């Protein structure tokens, strides 16, 4: 019998989701952070070469134009910040083409928030508090904070900030991932992605929240370079039980620098023959008008629900994953 009309998740999972949404809203209400909504359907797209967008056709005779489903609400939220919204948060859908797997559904739910005047460490405090609220009674151990460089060295013995094709290659061969040599070539960023996702991430946050900060500069398009060490950025990633949960930045506010990074990413997309992005002019203009000093973070809510319910696959927390949508 065809059961595809039924939800993929159990009904308890719907209740868990509702409870988590309620707790998040209460958490931010208590802190006077404003809930906002921004469009899912936009004229511009992100330029990140690692993210693929969905293109839709908007028909308003006689016009027919392409609109894009947003891969993250970041740009629109930054426009609100530049317009003087103050600290804001949003719970919304985001869309990433071609992403499907145990931890990925092409349509998923994001919790994203921005805090005016927050440094990255202060944002990490707030993330830790929110996770403590949501995981209350789950017996999580105290949160850990460690720099990318330290954690990378701890698990691999390699320095992520000093690229040596020979050392990285020798490590890969020694650790039975020799295919990395050909796959990564002389691309430092891909080497880091490969080694980190295979040999570091699985061990992060064993029954605890692990905050990894200070990502290498070659890995972050929207974060600020660290004031003391320009080889790293003020970026943080969250892990629990080896699952990547979210990514935050001390936000880049320099419009000229942002435009330069956009153009760099667009040229990478061209080299890789990826669909041409449409640079968000409004964001560049908003940054020119002035983005206040702030930190922001996006958390994948579905993965958070996976961890809360002990689910092995994202399908276990979605009513209708893409194959049933």
């Amino acid at each position, binding site marked *: 019998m065809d059961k595809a009309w039924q939800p993929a998740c159990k009904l308890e999972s719907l209740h868990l989701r509702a409870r988590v949404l309620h707790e998040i809203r209460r958490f931010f209400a208590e802190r006077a952070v404003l809930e906002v909504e921004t469009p899912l359907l936009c004229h511009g797209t992100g330029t990140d070469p690692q993210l693929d967008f969905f293109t839709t056709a908007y028909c308003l005779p006689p016009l027919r134009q392409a609109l894009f489903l947003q891969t993250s609400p970041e740009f629109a939220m930054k426009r609100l910040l530049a317009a003087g919204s103050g600290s804001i948060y949003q719970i919304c859908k985001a869309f990433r083409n071609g*992403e499907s797997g145990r931890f990925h559904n092409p349509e998923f739910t994001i919790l994203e928030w921005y805090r005016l005047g927050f440094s990255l460490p202060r944002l990490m405090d707030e993330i830790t508090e929110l996770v403590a609220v949501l995981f209350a009674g789950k017996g999580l151990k105290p949160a850990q904070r460690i720099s990318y460089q330290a954690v990378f060295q701890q698990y691999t013995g390699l320095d992520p900030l000093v690229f040596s094709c020979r050392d990285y290659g020798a490590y890969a061969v020694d650790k039975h991932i020799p295919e990395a040599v050909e796959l990564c070539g002389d691309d430092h960023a*891909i080497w880091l992605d490969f080694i980190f996702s295979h040999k570091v991430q699985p061990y992060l946050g064993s029954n605890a929240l692990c905050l990894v900060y200070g990502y290498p500069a070659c890995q972050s*398009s929207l974060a600020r370079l660290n004031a003391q060490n320009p080889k790293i950025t003020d970026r943080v990633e969250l892990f629990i039980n080896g699952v990547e949960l979210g990514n935050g930045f001390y936000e880049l506010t320099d419009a000229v620098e942002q435009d330069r990074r956009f153009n760099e990413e667009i040229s990478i997309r061209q080299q890789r023959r990826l669909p041409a992005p449409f640079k968000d002019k409004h964001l560049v203009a908003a940054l020119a008008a002035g983005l206040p000093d702030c930190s922001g973070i996006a958390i994948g809510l579905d993965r958070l629900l996976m961890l809360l319910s002990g689910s092995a696959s994202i399908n276990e927390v979605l009513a209708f994953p893409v194959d049933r949508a």
Partner: protein
Amino acid sequence: MAVYSTNEFKAGLKIMLDNDPCAIIENEFVKPGKGQAFNRVKIRNLKTGRVIERTFKSGESLEGADVVDVEMQYLYNDGEYRHFMVQDTFEQYQADQKIVGDASLWLKDQDFCTVTLWNDAPLAVTPANFVELAIVETDPGVRGDTSGGGGKPAKLETGAVVRVPLFVQQGEVIKADTRTGEYISRVKE
């Protein structure tokens, strides 16, 4: 042969890797939020049976392998080769011991089994999940002893040895699971 991209990878897909035919067991999409997407794939080499893990850049592609599983009847052993036949077409194939491997311990003349063909040549032989075979050698057990723990080894007519309960006697036909090598039940003639 068709070419498969990583996003078409799924369990059971047969692909060529390092010039050997392989089957995908598991495919995991790994993507750091801000980084390169990979597919970490568990693969069985169909020639050696070895399972390896290999990571590909998402979007990469591999050539498919012309590998099919065909149900065949096992005919006989000529000393060097074992011979198999496809029932519908009467087409016959031969495979040496290296290819038949441990399956030979369960193969009885006229029984059906699965022969994996690569480019129309036998690559591996898998016996049926359940077989019924006579016991040719086992110690006489104590009748009436039905205690769980014990059991004794029994050699079957095809050469496999399985543990059977003490009450099962030489000459009896039993049903066994070839995947685990375990006794299931006696078979009433």
